[in-house]
């Protein structure tokens, strides 16, 4: 069973909550799909067992010994990536989308494509199971393909090790990497916070989840920062047939847990927030049973 934790808005506590879920269950597979800012390895310090290169896309480069500056590529590029800089044809690495059209039409065969191969996927063991995480190299397109690779790997290990639960820590936003994270999972947990921004982002996130017909749950984290908006969020969930899971209070101890590289259940087992999380996970696990 895959449980994906996402948030829409960043910084709502998504990673702390997925880390908590990962240590509340029996052995799990933990998949960190926030490949643009993978953080869970900091808490869990997994062993380094396997490393795989992820080829994200391609970039065009010019061989100036062949290029005679005809400028045909400049007129064909739709990404404004090729221009004359000091009257010399130049490709901007930042803007190049990797479509390869310039390379195909170049009459001098001066343009070739190189693979972006700096992104990696790691597999290892942590204190409560196995962990898979991706690290996207800076500037790469986060198309969701690396997310898919992490999820596939997690599923393969789950089968081989006979572990039932996969906890996925998802990326923020509503774009492709989020869609790749939630497609086909059994449960999506959206972690939000009681602010106008949180509510705004939650609405866009729920829209995505309903497109894919997923069992969706909402947690309001730091609920006491604005009880009024917390109520609004809960009402919104009820009126949209979204399962409301729980409210978690703001507690500075949660930050301390992180600083001590511990999860909430490990650092503060007797706190109210841990009981609420335990209960929440139980509700998800027993849903439909």
């Amino acid at each position, binding site marked *: 069973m895959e449980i994906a934790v996402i*948030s*829409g*808005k*960043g*910084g*709502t506590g998504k*990673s702390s909550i997925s880390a908590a879920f990962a240590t509340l269950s029996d052995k799990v597979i933990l998949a960190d799909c926030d490949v*643009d*800012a993978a*953080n869970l390895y*900091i*808490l869990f310090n997994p062993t380094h067992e396997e490393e795989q290169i992820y080829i994200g896309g*391609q970039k065009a480069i010019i061989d100036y010994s062949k290029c005679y500056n005809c400028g045909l590529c400049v007129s*064909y590029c*739709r*990404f*404004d990536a090729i221009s004359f800089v000091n009257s010399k044809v130049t490709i901007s690495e*930042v*803007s190049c*989308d*990797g*479509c*390869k*059209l310039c390379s*195909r*039409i170049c009459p001098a065969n001066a343009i070739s494509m190189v693979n972006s191969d700096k992104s990696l996927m790691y597999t290892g063991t942590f204190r409560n199971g196995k962990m898979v995480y991706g690290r*996207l190299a*800076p*500037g*790469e*397109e*986060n*198309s969701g393909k690396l997310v898919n690779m992490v999820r596939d790997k997690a599923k393969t290990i789950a089968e081989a090790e006979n572990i039932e639960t996969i906890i996925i820590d998802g*990326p*923020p*936003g*509503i*774009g*492709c990497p989020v*869609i790749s994270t939630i497609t086909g999972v059994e449960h999506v947990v959206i972690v939000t*916070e*009681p*602010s*106008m*921004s*949180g509510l*705004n*982002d939650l609405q*866009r996130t729920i*829209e*995505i989840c309903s*497109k894919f017909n997923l069992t969706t749950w909402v947690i309001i984290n730091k609920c006491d*920062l*604005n009880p009024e*908006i917390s109520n609004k969020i809960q009402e919104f969930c009820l009126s949209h047939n979204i399962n409301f899971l729980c409210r978690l209070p703001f507690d*500075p101890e949660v*930050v301390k847990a*992180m*600083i001590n*590289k511990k999860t909430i259940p490990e650092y503060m087992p007797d706190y109210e927030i841990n009981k609420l999380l335990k209960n929440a996970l139980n509700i998800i696990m027993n849903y439909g049973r």
Partner: protein
Amino acid sequence: MKIAIASGKGGTGKTLVSTNLFYSISKQNIKNCFLVDCDAEEPNDMIFFKGKVEKTFDVNQKVPVINESKCTYCGKCHEFCNYNAIFILPSAKIIKVIEDLCHGCGACSVACKFDAISEKEVSLGTISRFYFNKSSTIVEAKMKIGVMSPVPVIKAAVKETGNEGIIILDSPPGTSCPFIQTVATADYVILVTEPTPFGLSDLKQSVDTLKTMNKPCGVIINRSGLGGNEIYDYLNQCNIPILMEIPFDKEIASHYSKGELFVKYKKEWEQHFISMFNSIVEKYGNSSN
């Protein structure tokens, strides 16, 4: 001059800084002051302002349309497409464009020798321009849900400013494509972080990325007092200036949650933002893009 407000980790306070900074300097007599919300997946800046919409327009991308009466199923377009967006089964005379995978590069049209490919426009999102006061404007980039990449919408929003005056870019989180696209044009980058292990890890990634791009940057530590001291050691070691520290303060959090600008209530902060802005302009305002 363009100043980008960025952070690796989501939810550290980019929008808090962008909106309060823009509001503070918009009261100074600066000709052409812009705030551009480049977080196109989840734009939230307009929650904090009342502004009249000056204009709204769609950002479009071209996708191919195949005229099957002319198509010979030669497969050349499929071969030219570097995104696997054209599916072809010549034996069964099936050809399909998978619009979600298309980047609109136009390679298929170039490939087709039978004039069987035309193009249509599909919307990727919208740009809205809001009047704030006679010298200040807010531009919002909003990606359509389900679209592959926010980059084209971000590019269009930045272009809308005309590239003159003081331009504040509220960047998307992470260090992948959308972030690079936003900061690539900036003269200076303000990184907003929080003093937690996750915050520090993502900050390091952002700093490393900016270094390879040769972008000068400074750091604002948000929610200071809530975490540890590691971040100060790191910044000290790397010689990165701390531009401002915003303490963890329930009052600031509460204003933010309600969609209010905290500088309106804590007047001394308006001056802090203006001083910070002035010293950045003094030092970096004359560099070209």
